[in-house]
C-alpha cells in the first residue's frame, strides 16, 4: 500500500466537449496533479452557498501519458445532483473541487502483460478508455478485446476513436452490442450481454486473459458470473459497478 494523503484541491475547467447527446467530457487543469494510473477515478465535490455539499466519483478518461490536463467523461443523469450541473452550467474557466487520483484495484497498465478483455456498459467505458488510450500510447500489442454495450447507435461513447484504435491493427478489436435500437445496416450484436456473446468475443484471448468489467451493476454481475462459468479465474476478473442505469 502506497502511503500518502489525498486532499481536496481546485481544478479549473479547461474545455468541455460533447461526446453524445447525453455525455460530455470535461478537461480539467489541476495544479500539482501527481499523475494517475489507467482505471483510477477522482471524487468531485459541489458545495452550495448554504453549505450543502454533494460528492460524486468520476472515472478519469484520459491516459496518464497526457499529464498536463485530465479528462472526465460524465453521463447526464436527469435527476442527478451533480451531472446536470456539469452539463448545463459548467463552462471553461469554472473551478471545481476534486480529490484524487483514487483506486488501485481497478487499474491496468501495459506492464501487465498478457491478453486483456474489457467489458463496458454505457458510461462504464470511461475507465476502460483510459486503459485503451494508455495501451496505444505505450505501443502495446497485447491481444485485447473490448465488448461495449450501448442502448442506441448515437449513444456509443467514443465510437469514432474506438474505431480508429481498432484500425491500428495492434491487437485490439472492438465488438459492439446495441440493446434497444439498431440501424438497418448494423453488423454488431443486437442484445444484452450474455454467456454466448462473451464466449464468442473472448475466445481468441483464452482463459488467461485479465478482465475488467465496468458499468451498471446488473451488467457487471451478469458478465462477471458468466466469465467465471467460462472458466476464467476469479482473481483475473476485476469489476467496477456504477449502480443503477441512468434511465
Amino acid at each position, binding site marked *: 500500500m502506497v502511503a*500518502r494523503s*489525498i486532499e481536496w484541491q481546485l481544478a479549473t475547467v479547461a474545455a468541455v466537449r460533447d461526446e453524445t447527446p447525453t455525455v460530455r467530457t470535461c478537461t480539467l487543469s489541476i495544479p500539482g496533479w501527481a499523475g494517475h494510473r489507467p482505471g483510477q477515478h477522482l471524487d468531485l465535490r459541489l458545495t452550495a452557498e448554504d453549505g450543502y455539499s454533494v460528492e460524486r466519483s468520476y472515472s478519469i478518461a484520459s491516459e496518464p501519458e497526457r499529464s498536463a490536463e485530465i479528462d472526465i467523461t460524465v453521463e447526464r443523469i436527469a435527476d442527478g445532483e451533480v451531472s446536470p450541473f456539469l452539463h448545463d452550467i459548467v463552462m471553461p474557466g469554472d473551478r471545481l473541487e476534486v480529490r484524487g487520483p483514487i483506486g*488501485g484495484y481497478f487499474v491496468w497498465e501495459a506492464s501487465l502483460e498478457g491478453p486483456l478483455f474489457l467489458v463496458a456498459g454505457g458510461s462504464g467505458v470511461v475507465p476502460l478508455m483510459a486503459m485503451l488510450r494508455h495501451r496505444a500510447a505505450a505501443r502495446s500489442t497485447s491481444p485485447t478485446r473490448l465488448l461495449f454495450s450501448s442502448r442506441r447507435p448515437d449513444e456509443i461513447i467514443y465510437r469514432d476513436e474506438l474505431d480508429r484504435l481498432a484500425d491500428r491493427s495492434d491487437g485490439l478489436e472492438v465488438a459492439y452490442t446495441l440493446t434497444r435500437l439498431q440501424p438497418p445496416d448494423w453488423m454488431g450484436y443486437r442484445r444484452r450481454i450474455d454467456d454466448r456473446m462473451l464466449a464468442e468475443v473472448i475466445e481468441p484471448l483464452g482463459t488467461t486473459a485479465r478482465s475488467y468489467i465496468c458499468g451498471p451493476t446488473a451488467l457487471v454481475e451478469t458478465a462477471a458470473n458468466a466469465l467465471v462459468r467460462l472458466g476464467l479465474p476469479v482473481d483475473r476478473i476485476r469489476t*467496477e*459497478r456504477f449502480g443503477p442505469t441512468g434511465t
Partner: protein
Amino acid sequence: MEEAAADPTIDLMVDGNAIAGALEMAFSGDVTVVPGRCAHCGAINAIGAMHAYVRGPGAVLRCPSCDGVVLRVVETTDATYVDLRGAAYLRFERS
C-alpha cells in the same frame, strides 16, 4: 440478465471502489487492493471487490460470498468512523 432482475435491490449495490476516496482519507493510502477476510464465512476479497451499499447514512461493505457485513464506514463533520468487526483481518502488504 434474469438473475439480476429478480432482485430489485441489486441495482443499488456498488463496490468498494465507490468509497475508495473516503477510505483513502482514513487509511492514508489506497485500500481497494487490500484483501480482507470475512469474519462470518472466511472468504478473502479485495476491498475493491466487496459489495457496497452507500445510500444510507453510512456505507456498508458486504462479503461477495456470504453477504455478511465486513466493514461499515460513517463520515461525520470532523471524522471518519470505520467499523471493522465484520473483518477477521485486513492484510496490508509491505513492499
